[in-house]
């Protein structure tokens, strides 16, 4: 069996004990993967229950396809992409609810920038500005914001050169600053 794996690069021959080994390997990745999948989903959905649901589905899908994953080191990036896609699907599915929320934000009484800054409304505006970013930039800025992830790690997660990630994060921050510049000006005038 090992000879076959040697002959066929990238192949994995699993016997009866292979399933147990597969589960053990997956279990090793599970705790870290659950946190990552949840955070990625949370960045898109911004709802704890929805994010947990998406993270759970992402982990199950990852487990189902785990035996096909040749490089175990690529697990986190792969899981990240699964969670991202599922979260976007979920977001599209609940678009109606999202629209209602946007309408509610628009209908709310106008606050000045200072009041917004001290309230949760500021986070809402940030979230809205983030949603309007192109997907690639959004993904980069979200992963870069996850605590403990360096640019290099984000580059590994996204399977991109480090320079590309840096560039995307920079551009995303710039676009967000431009979108939210009115808050700064309002503060200055207020």
């Amino acid at each position, binding site marked *: 069996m090992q000879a076959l794996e040697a002959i066929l690069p990238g192949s994995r021959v699993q016997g009866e004990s292979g399933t147990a080994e597969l589960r053990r390997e997956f279990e090793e990745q599970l705790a870290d993967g659950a946190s990552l999948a949840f955070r990625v989903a949370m960045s898109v959905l911004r709802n704890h229950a929805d994010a947990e649901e998406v993270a759970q589905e992402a982990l199950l899908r990852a487990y189902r396809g785990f035996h096909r994953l040749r490089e175990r080191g690529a697990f986190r990036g792969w899981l990240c992409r699964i969670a991202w896609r599922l979260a976007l699907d979920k977001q599209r599915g609940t678009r109606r609810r999202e629209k209602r929320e946007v309408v509610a934000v628009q209908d709310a009484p106008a606050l000045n920038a200072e009041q917004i800054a001290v309230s949760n409304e500021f986070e809402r505006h940030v979230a809205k500005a983030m949603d309007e970013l192109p997907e690639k930039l959004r993904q980069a800025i*979200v992963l870069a914001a996850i605590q403990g992830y360096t640019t290099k790690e984000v580059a590994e997660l996204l399977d991109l050169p480090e320079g590309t990630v840096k560039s995307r994060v920079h551009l995303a921050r710039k676009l*967000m600053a431009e979108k939210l510049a009115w808050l700064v000006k309002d503060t*200055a005038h207020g």
Partner: protein
Amino acid sequence: MACERYSTRLIEEALAPGGDAELTAHLAVCAECLAELGRQRDLQSRITGSIAAMVAAEPSPALLARVRQQIAAEETPRRASWMRWAIAGATVSALAGFAVWFAGRALLRQPVLGPQPGQAVRGTPPAQRSAKNEPAQNSVVPPTGVARKTGANGAKSARQRTPRLAQSVQVAAAQDGVPAANTPASSAPKFNVIVPPGQREAVLRLVAAMQSGRVDVAGLLKQPEQQEMKPLEIAPLKITPLDEKTSNGQAEGDHK
């Protein structure tokens, strides 16, 4: 208010300090822009903090428990894959079986081909049409049962039952190679000719032409005479001796 010229560059400066020497020099003399830069840095800090807070949440411990529970309940991935293939195979087999059954059913419903009494096309040529009361020629005679059920109005429906693959033309028995005139008075026995689809009209015209004498039937039936062929003559192959040829060539070369 900050200078319009530097508004975008102030954002860049807030993101990556010290990258713009001209702006740095301007900031040394413009208090407004310096204040704006401070506000931009504050905004950046808030934005980063908001995004970080957004993704700082941790999943509940119940998430891991649920995932482990579902994994335990699931089959192994390989078996799941095998089951998917099995289900797909069963589905394809069922569809194929249904298709075969449906095709067989359609074939059974199709009318029987070939000469059948009552289903034949009466092949009286147009030249023979004379009497007004004569029934329509070249029309399909419906089967007896159908005719009984549908009566005179059943002609159309009977035409729709014409076999698709081949057609039958009823022609009076031949006399000396020429088909007999297909008149009601003719007592000559009739026979059916199975013709390929779409050629019924052509056959009817040919029969009419043969009956009217416009076509020389004997000439058509006459086999072309075969010319006597002379047996092949086998002539011996003449080959020039090799030595003589070679010696001649060498001799010519020597001369040149």
